[in-house]
């Protein structure tokens, strides 16, 4: 077990260059002999698998969907950051680095973030070369928009479908390697456990989701690119299948879990409409560029939005945070919405919603259009019509999605939005090389804890996933494998494979034999409710203690009363879900434990005990300037290890967006 962050010495802006200059290399003939397992084909996994395949390694890639192109990254909407400074608005590698460390509320590792900012620019180059159709200006050059928590325009986008276009780029690179025989793709496969031999990761056990058979796969190294665990809350903006299983199994085999309680609650999602709700839909943060958020100034105002006059509206973000206004970071915007709704100013039938209004944007853009047309006599109505067309070009698909879900027309009345669970900053603890505390086991993308501290800035998850896969792991993996070239493929008849497979199969048998009375879904919903109420947007010691007890009880009940239909050796989505929910329950407990232990507020983690007089989050750098890295010790038993955070460049200060 190695719990050393391995941050290279030297100046911050030289660390990565130095590292690359001195890293061990694997020669081409040896690469062909080395097998690598990549679990997940989202941005992190697809980019890693494609790049490693191109380099000559033999790669096996896994995903649970029917095609790698459907990984959850496909759903990302708003954009991807890069320090290109194409807009000449003062952006630089340093500024992106600084914004990300500050945005993360000083709980990220500086060296990792700096590397991320350094490679950001190459990501855009790579994607454009692959044919990713980013938005462009009339001159043919790339267009940018701004995102929350920054004052420059550095976000590249493809309408509201940026994740789709980036993933299809990475997917095409991956499929090219499949065609060349460098990557073997295992779709509809779910990793069930990692196999360790001599304390090194040497393979996985996967379930073929079509036949139900368990399979053993050897690899000289295993890369987990399995995404985030927001679905522990049941309702989130994540895809239905997103899960923690791969990461959790690795955790139970010795990989420390970093900052599990750091969850991002996204301010702009379509509110819950009923008990049957299966997931929540994000309305991209990019909308905050042009939409203004408000609630009525009067409590319990039941009038329609359009009947509420300008002076009766409270644009509370602009009021509280004049410098950033509607573009404050996500954690700040979410808490502000909760505060207004808790105080009784919420709108809509549930009163758990605020307005996101485009009225002013329609007018502003419309007047610009009239100006372009040299039209000086146009009416306001004409301007609004023109403005709506401009907004449609920018966000058309989001407006359409909103309309389909709510049955309301957002061009005519403001959107109703509310915060929802969106992203998990926590994840498997990794060192600078993206290696977990288990040798040969790596974690990339949302699955690791690394770059976003306690709050992720918009448009930086896509950047991190692709940075990890295209530009980091190709170097750092070689540094490990260079010492492993002598290891021949280990046959999967090895006792360690047999034993792990047996354990997996026993667990499946146990689950199927419970034959209880309650559905998997009902347990998942109950877990979600506990997590949302007691480990959600605001947390306190009492609630967290209660949550831990409740989750332990829920776990006992699950393992004695869950009802799973179908067979083991056949396609069985209920069984797949049961395994995932069982892991979420265990994770939920650890998240509450972590939240309880961290008695400070930082980023998305808001402890009610730790706030300023005006209700802002209060960090405690003296006592909590560390990464929590939890070590699994047995059932409901963890040990906390701390990685101290040293800030060489960005001196922590109380974050202010006022």
């Amino acid at each position, binding site marked *: 077990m190695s719990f050393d962050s391995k941050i290279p010495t030297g100046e911050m802006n030289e660390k990565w260059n130095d590292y690359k200059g001195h890293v061990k290399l694997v020669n081409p003939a040896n690469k062909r002999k080395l097998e690598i397992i990549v679990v997940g084909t989202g941005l992190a996994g697809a980019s890693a698998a494609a790049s490693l395949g191109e380099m000559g390694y033999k790669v096996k890639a896994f995903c649970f969907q029917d095609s790698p192109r459907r990984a959850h990254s496909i759903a990302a909407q708003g954009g991807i950051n890069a320090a290109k400074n194409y807009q000449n608005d003062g952006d630089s590698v340093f500024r992106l680095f600084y914004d990300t460390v500050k945005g993360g509320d000083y709980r990220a590792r500086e060296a990792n973030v700096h590397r991320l900012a350094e490679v950001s620019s190459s990501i855009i180059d790579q994607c454009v070369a*692959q*044919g990713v159709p980013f938005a462009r200006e009339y001159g043919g050059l790339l267009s940018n928009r701004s995102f929350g928590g920054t004052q420059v325009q550095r976000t590249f986008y493809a309408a509201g479908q940026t994740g789709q276009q980036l993933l299809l780029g990475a997917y095409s690179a991956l499929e090219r390697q499949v065609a060349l025989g460098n990557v073997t793709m295992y779709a509809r496969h779910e990793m069930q456990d990692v196999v360790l031999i001599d304390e090194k990761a040497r393979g996985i056990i996967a379930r073929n989701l079509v036949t139900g058979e368990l399979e053993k796969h050897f690899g000289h190294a295993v890369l987990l690119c399995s995404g985030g665990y927001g679905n522990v809350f049941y309702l989130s903006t994540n895809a239905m299948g997103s899960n923690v299983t791969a990461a959790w199994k690795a955790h139970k085999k010795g990989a420390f879990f970093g900052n599990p309680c750091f969850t991002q609650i996204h301010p702009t999602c379509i509110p819950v409409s009923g008990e049957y709700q299966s997931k929540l839909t994000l309305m991209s943060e990019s909308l905050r560029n042009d939409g203004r958020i408000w609630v009525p100034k009067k409590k319990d105002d039941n009038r329609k939005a359009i009947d509420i006059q300008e002076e009766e509206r409270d644009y509370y973000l602009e009021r509280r945070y004049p410098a950033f206004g509607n573009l404050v970071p996500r954690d700040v915007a979410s808490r502000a919405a909760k505060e207004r709704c808790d105080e009784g100013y919420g709108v809509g039938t549930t009163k758990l919603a605020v307005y996101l209004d485009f009225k002013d944007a329609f007018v502003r853009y419309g007047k610009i259009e009239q100006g372009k047309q040299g039209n000086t006599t146009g009416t306001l109505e004409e301007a609004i019509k023109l403005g709506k067309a401009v907004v449609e070009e920018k966000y058309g698909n989001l407006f359409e999605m909103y309309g*389909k879900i709510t049955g309301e027309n957002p061009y005519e009345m403001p959107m109703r939005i509310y915060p929802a669970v969106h992203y998990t900053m926590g994840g498997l603890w990794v060192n600078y090389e993206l290696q977990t505390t288990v040798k040969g086991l790596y974690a990339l993308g949302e699955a690791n804890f690394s770059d976003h501290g306690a709050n992720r800035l918009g448009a930086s998850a896509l950047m991190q996933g692709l940075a990890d896969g295209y530009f980091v792991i190709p170097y750092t993996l070689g540094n490990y494998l260079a010492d492993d070239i002598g290891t021949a493929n280990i046959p999967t008849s090895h006792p360690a494979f047999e034993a792990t497979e047996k354990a997996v199969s026993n667990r499946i048998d146990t689950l199927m034999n419970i034959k209880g009375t309650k559905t998997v879904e009902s347990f998942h919903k109950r877990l979600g409710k506990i997590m949302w109420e007691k480990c959600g947007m605001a947390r306190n010691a009492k609630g967290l203690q209660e949550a831990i007890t409740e989750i332990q009880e829920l776990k006992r009940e699950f393992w004695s009363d869950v009802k799973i239909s179908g067979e083991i050796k056949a396609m069985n989505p209920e069984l797949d879900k049961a395994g995932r929910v069982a892991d979420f329950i265990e994770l939920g407990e650890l998240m509450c434990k972590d939240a309880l232990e961290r008695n400070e507020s930082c980023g998305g983690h808001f402890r009610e005990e730790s706030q300023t007089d005006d209700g802002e989050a209060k960090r405690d750098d003296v006592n909590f300037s560390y990464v929590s890295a939890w070590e699994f010790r047995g059932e409901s038993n963890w040990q906390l290890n701390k990685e101290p955070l040293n800030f060489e460049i960005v001196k922590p200060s109380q974050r202010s967006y006022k």
Partner: protein
Amino acid sequence: MEHYNMNLTLKVWRQKNHHSAGTLESYQVKDISSEMSFLEMFDVLNEQLITDGKDPIAFDHDCREGICGSCSMYIDGRAHGPWTKNTVCQLHMRAFKNGDTIVVEPWRSKAFPVIKDLMVNRSAFDRIIQAGGYISVNTGNAVDANSLPIDKKDADNAFMAAACIGCGACVAACINSSAMLFVSAKVAQLSLLPQGQPERESRVLNMVAQMDKESFGNCSNTYACEAECPKGISVSNIARLNKEYLTAGLSTEQ
């Protein structure tokens, strides 16, 4: 928007696996809210089936917001159901009324064999992409992104073609089970962009050859694909593919 509840009869295709025969089975669901999505209605039905000790209905789904392309149901004779430019996961129950009978089947195509119930195997699409749906550029070989200005019109058109979600509704909707709309979308995207030029000819030839191998049918220009495509992929892409194919065929013959 006014909400209402409804009771419905569902006739759903049940098929144990690829080898067995399937049939339509009837189910009753009660108190379905008009605000639910179609898949949430299926969740309710599945919970009911599990509680009754029956096998729930298998169907593909993941993002539930119309972008991953997983969901695939043929509803009352239409791919993705009654709304146009829409996926099943975005279809909401306000499209139906109390007392309706709804027939739900999988995509039907020789190239998309049924795995179970409403789930089909669409890996043929991946193999078509493997045949040439990419630009051959290794990681790290790219030049600065803005060194390559692209006419906004071309970029926008490429984006519109690239919006395809690979769901396969075009194939399901086509009487010939043709995959032309899907293939043409990728061919068009890459042939519109300067980066796509070096492999322009081999790409279209190889992708079409793979499509033929996968036992998709021929295109007879009925445009049912465009009508049912959730992303509004235009049949003008098919015209472009045909042109590209002809040019590439001619130049390789020389």
